[in-house]
């Protein structure tokens, strides 16, 4: 009788490492809090916090990190916190910094990346704490699963095609704004290499 009561939870605990391992080394679901990635994530038009899939596997397997990827990383100033930012520059690049940073231009050293939030006024990013070591990067944002109207993989910002005669709707303007933000980010970076490896 007593055995029947505890054998079921025991079986759950027995298989627990499989589930934990999957979330730790492959894929995990997370809720985005805060406004630092607006309007890409948690835009003002949405009344929910975004729920997204983070890919830890590609980060652990040494896939190169590309500029423009959105990543989750441990906050260098507070080791308990996880923050979500966009990679602006990788090792070897020179970046023109934004106000809180003491130097006007900074060289990203080997094994580091430069991360920034999409909303420059409400973010605590590399402009505050400088280049971030690759070891702090945790996972890459892959897929938005909630809210449903923005469900889907994260698309790189591309210039929206304007068909002659077609009306420019809300989506066109938001795509255009994302494209312009991306161009502004890129204009601040002097590239010396395109990728860096995280292994």
């Amino acid at each position: 009788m007593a055995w029947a009561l505890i054998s079921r939870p025991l079986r759950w605990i027995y298989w627990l490492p499989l589930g934990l391992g999957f979330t730790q080394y492959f894929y995990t679901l997370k809720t985005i809090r805060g406004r630092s990635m607006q309007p890409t994530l948690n835009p003002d038009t949405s009344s929910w916090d975004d729920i997204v899939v983070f890919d830890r596997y590609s980060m652990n397997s040494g896939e190169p990190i590309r500029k423009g990827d959105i990543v989750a990383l441990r906050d260098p100033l507070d080791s308990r916190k996880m923050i979500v930012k966009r990679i602006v520059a990788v090792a070897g690049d020179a970046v023109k910094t934004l106000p809180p940073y003491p130097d006007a231009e900074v060289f990203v050293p080997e094994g580091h990346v430069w991360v920034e939030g999409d909303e420059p006024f409400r973010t605590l990013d590399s402009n505050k704490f400088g280049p971030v070591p690759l070891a702090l990067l945790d996972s890459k944002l892959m897929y938005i699963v909630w809210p449903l109207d923005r469900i889907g993989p994260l698309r790189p910002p591309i210039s929206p095609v304007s068909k002659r005669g077609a009306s420019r709707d809300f989506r066109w303007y938001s795509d255009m704004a994302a494209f312009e933000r991306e161009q502004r980010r890129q204009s601040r970076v002097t590239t010396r290499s395109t990728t860096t490896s995280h292994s």
Partner: protein
Amino acid sequence: MIPPSWLHLAEPAIKRVGLTCLHVRIQQLVLRTFIDVVQLINFGFAFHLFKENVGGLCFMAGPSMLPTLDNSGELVLESILPHRLFPNHLGRGELITLTSPVDPSRIICKRVIGLPGDIVCVDPTGLKAHSTEHVVIPKGHIWIAGDNAAWSKDSRDYGPVSMALVRGRIAARIYPFNRFTVFSKNATHIEH
């Protein structure tokens, strides 16, 4: 009794039964192998999760911590769980393991020299910086150094490191049994 000459009539039926038995056997075998493999993966994950989050034994190599830790062949006990639970309980003088800020695939072992807010002399030996140069350690960062100042790459080269890089503490040296040591906080305070 069935005459033996009739047996050939039953042959196809016997064959069919035998084949079905074989199929069932193969199915069972495949299923059992599959469960075994999943169990093996489960154990692998369990072992790895334990080693990454609770602690375990690991080999050390490198000259940067001489004379506290030898150049090679020493087995030490790494304790991670206490640091996971209380990340702010780091003390000056403790031996810690951390992921290298320069190369994320390397795990390094250093001694904690300064905590957030401390003012640290960058290099008292004057090798890598002028011996009068001092820095204030920013929030959430620590200053680390190897015991072998002449042959160690540490905060003198890359500055203060984030506490988020710290994995755990070196609790004890296990392997050369005659050199068994428990490492404790042994920073000496100078009273004013």
